[in-house]
Every structure is written in structure tokens, then in C-alpha cells.
């Protein structure tokens, strides 16, 4: 359940990070179009928000909120560390985590 939350938070934040020019350019070599930026943000933020649901399901509402903030922090730190060392890797990690979460569920 918490792995699912981490996967959602990670994928969401990865999309949001790609919507920023600097990180998109690191990955693709070109600047993102405004449609791409909007699309990534429109997909990324809700995913990161949705990560709260498995947390609440795992515990209670109050503890779920706290856990969700922790997941966001953990996912963000993982993302930042990976992007600093190997810009392509974080994008691959998203689907891997999603599969892992699906398997665990």
C-alpha cells in the first residue's frame, strides 16, 4: 500500500520536474512546448496528490496525511539524487515502481 503511494508520488513529481525547462532539456535536449508543459503538470500534480489515498487506506486520515507528506519528501529526494547523477534513470524508474506497486497489490 505504501509502495503504491511512493510510486504515485514519484511518478507525479517526475512529471512535474520534467515540466520545468531545465530538466526537460537535460532529458530530451530541446525545450518543451507549452502544450507539453501544461500536459505534464496536469498529469503530474494530480498523481502526486493521489498518493495520499493509499496512505489513508493503510492507516487513518490523520496518520495518512503525515505519511503522504513523508512519501512526497522521500520521492522528491530520490528524484533529485537520481537526476543529479543520471538524468535518464529517473524516468525509467517510474514505470518500474508502478509495476512493483501493481505486483504488491
Amino acid at each position: 500500500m505504501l509502495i503504491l503511494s511512493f510510486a504515485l508520488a514519484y511518478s507525479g513529481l517526475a512529471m512535474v520536474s520534467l515540466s520545468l525547462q531545465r530538466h526537460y532539456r537535460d532529458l530530451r535536449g530541446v525545450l518543451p512546448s507549452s502544450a507539453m508543459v501544461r500536459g505534464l503538470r496536469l498529469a503530474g500534480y494530480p498523481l502526486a496528490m493521489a498518493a495520499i489515498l493509499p496512505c489513508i487506506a493503510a492507516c487513518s486520515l490523520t496518520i495518512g496525511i503525515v505519511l503522504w507528506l513523508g512519501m512526497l519528501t522521500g520521492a522528491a529526494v530520490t528524484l533529485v539524487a537520481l537526476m543529479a547523477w543520471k538524468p535518464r534513470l529517473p524516468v525509467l524508474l517510474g514505470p518500474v515502481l508502478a509495476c512493483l506497486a501493481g505486483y504488491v497489490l
Partner: protein
Amino acid sequence: MTIRPALQGPGFRQSMAWLHTWAGLWFSWLLFAIFLTGTLAVFHDPINHWMKGGVSTAAAERTIDRDRRLALGLAYMAREHADRPMWEIWPANDDEGNALNVFWKDDQGHYTKAWLDPSTGQEYKPVKAVQMRETLGGHLFVDFHYRLHAGLAGLWIVAAATVAMLVALVSGIVTHKRIFKDFFTFRPAKGQRSWLDGHNAAAVLSLPFQFMIAFSGIAISALTLFPAPIIAHYGPGDAGRAAFRTDRLPASIRPVASGKTAGIPDLGQLARRAEVQLGQPVSAVTIDQPGDAAMRIAMYGAGEEHGARPHISRTTGMIAFDADSSVTDIRRPGEVAAGAASLTNEILSSLHMAGFGGIVVKWIYFLCGLAGTAMMGTGAVLFMVKRRNRHGGEFGAATARTYRVIEALNVAAITGLGLACIGYLWANRLIPASLAHRELWEVRMFFAIWAIALAHACLRSPLRAWLEQLAALAVFCLVLPVLNLATTGDQLVSGLWRGDAEAAGVELASLMFGSGALLSFMALRHKLSMSPSPRKCKTASVKRSEVSGC
């Protein structure tokens, strides 16, 4: 978070930057210590366990006849301590391997404990495992964290530092112009730029945690730090505080003996009723004025497995019966007796101390705590890295000397404290188990090592000091499991093998910190070997932008 144009005058961001730099720097060393010890304090129980040494004693009994144990406890108290106004029975104390314990207050008012054999009800003295060491254990980290091992004065200093932290957090956010654009940015191996990126990343990514931990930390001590409301409502001094306490905890008012006798009702039956009402198993029974008509029998619930409780507040359920077995008072798990403000205080305390969510939350707090510690450490180092490149002249003629002091304090606060913490664990294993007051000696070693690190940092040049202390830190952390093997014969692998996650965890964490110190040492040595010999920061002309931080 956007700053509205009206506030964005030419001086505002600069003045916030000034505030952030100086409020941050002067408290950075103290806050680093508070944060590092606080982060270690998350796992103070495992650290205790490792420091006491030895494997745990008898395995906990599985089958427990609760009714019989309550009856035996009651019989023992009626036999031996019939005149005491308060009896307490723990039918299965899981802190002591499900032992049957009874408690009362002796003539001096001290809480006294006895072990009873669950099959016969006779008292016996438990045998202490030979390898157990007298130690303050992880509690030193807790005590240092919230009051610097210095009583009430320490509490006030920590509170002041926490306010400074909140000031630094807010001013840092205001100053961080590109906070959204740079949210995920970290550029390694770029010198001062990397230190700033690291400082920002550590702070911004764990920001909710930082605000929560600072604010809740002060909130825990609110009544000590803000005594005026109690004085205004309840009067000054101890009398006022006592009156406040009874108002807040009505259950602490003990019933007065009426003089009429009454039989004690069947505890087993009351316990079953309690469990139905509270939804928790009964862990403790207290009887005030036993044998009197005014007696009160309170049954306390045991929280479920730490991680499974659905609320943040840590209070367990309590239900009180009188001599006629009717319910006089009930507190459901998670509630408090005295209203919303009291509940808020309890929740803030529990939030600060990770009193919920089990091992997952503990690890989240540990990692966020390390992030906060990194935030302060990188901030302090960044201050000097920047000024090694470009002399700031903030202190006029005394600038160079002040910078030298700050450099020394940086080393002593960061690697020095690290050495003190690992040295504390080394002292635990090296000081003989039989020495009287050995726990005092362990604490003395903690502070002594820290003082030596400070002296070392003052005597050696800054970069040499960093190198040497990082090397020492790496060695002491990495060799800890070997030390454990040499002194107790126990070590990491056998700990893991027998499922002792706590002791193994302590050693694994030590290995990780040691690896971190080793990598830092190697990076700094690499940097020093690549650049010309370090110069004092008086001349700013040499461009050192390709030099990475230590």
C-alpha cells in the same frame, strides 16, 4: 509561494537574506547538535538495547491466564501491602517479557515494583542478565536534544534556538527567489553552487517536516515557556501548577477513604467489560483505596501494535469503576480528559516524537531529520565556502580572525559532534561493565571527545582539521561492529541471524555514517590534491570555482 509585488521593494529580499544568513549562522552549530541528537533519538530504544548489551532474557510467555493473574496479584497485595492506598497490577507486562508485576508507593512515596510468579503468586527477584551494562543509553541523545543535558536553562536555550530556526526557515523561503524553478535542482561537483543546491534541496524538499518539527518542539514545552496563563488562572507557584494539573487530569485526583469497608469486585469480569467498552486489551489495573467503599478501580487499555493505532495522539483508553462495579469515568483511546487545547497539545507532542505509525514513520522522521541536519550543516559550510572565494569583510578589521573562529566551529559542530556520538558508543563498550557509575563516565566521554574535537579544530588549519576529523569519524563508525565483536563477542551478522533487528540496525547505521564520512574524506582529499595549497582567505583574486566543496 509568490511574494506579492507590494512587498517586493528593493530592500526586502536583501534584508531577508541578511536575516537568514546571520540568524542561521549563529545558531547553526547549536541547531545542528539539536537536530543530529534528535534524529538519533528517534531510535533511542534500539540504541539503549545495543548499549545495554547481551541478548534479551526469557522469551515472553505466550499463554496468559489474565483472570488468574489478576486474582494472584490482588491476593499478594492484600497479604503484603493491605494498608497502602494504591495498588497497581500489570497482568502481562510486555516490557518484562509478559511478567506479572505489582506496584505500590512506599513510605517515601517512591513507586515500587515486585515480580510475582504467575503460577503460584509468590514474589521472586528476577535475575539480571550478566552482560547487562548500566547505561544512560539512547536517553543521552534525547536529553541533550531537548535541553542540552542542562536542565531548565538548557530547555530555554533550545527554545530560543528553535525560534531562530523558524526565522531562518521563513527568511530562507522569502530569499529563495527561484524556489519553484530550482525545486528539483542539484548540480554536483560545482563548488559553491553545489553547496547552495544541497542546502536548498535538503531544506525545501523536507519543508513540511521542518516547520512541523520546530513548531511542535516548542509546543511540547509550551507550559514551561509560557507560564503566565497558569499563573493568571490558577495562581502562582507550585499551588497554582498543582491546581492546573488536577483540572487537566481529573483522574489524578485520588478518592478519599470513607471508612466504610467494601469487598473488591471480580477484576476479571471488570476487565472483560473494559475491553468491550474500550476496544483495547487491558494492560494495567489500579485500585485506589482498596477495600474501602469509596474505592476506584481503573483499567487501562494497551495500545495496539504501535503502527496499527489509527490516531496520532498516544493516550490509551481508561475506564474507572467504583465499588459497585458501575462505571464512573471513561476515556476512549486517543482522547484526552480536558478538552480541545489539551488534545492539541497531545497531538503536537505525539507528532514531534513520532508516537504513531510504527517503524515506517520512525524511518521517515530519521531521514527527514538527517535532511534537516544536512540543511544546517550545508548552510554553515556554505557560509565559509563562499567567503573563502570572496572575502566579505563583514567584521571590519576582525574579519579574518572571525572567519577562522567560524571555520573551527564548523568542524567542531559537524564532525566533532559526530565523533562525540560514535565515541559515546565506543566508551560504552570500552568502559568495564562492573565500574561504579559507568553511565556517568560514558556521558563524560561524550563531552570530552567533543571538547577535544573543538581544540583540534582550533589548532589545525581548517581543511586539515576537516580531513583528519572525517578520517577519524570514518574509522570509528566503520570499526564499531569489530569493537562489539571484540568486547562482547556479539556482532552484526549474528545479530541479524537471531532476528535482533535493533542491535543490528545500530551497527548498520554506524556503517552507513562511516561510509558517508569516508566518501567525504576522499572527495576532500581529491580536491586538495587537485588545487594549489589552500590559502588563507585574505586575497580573493584566485578563482576557485572548479574546486568542489569538502
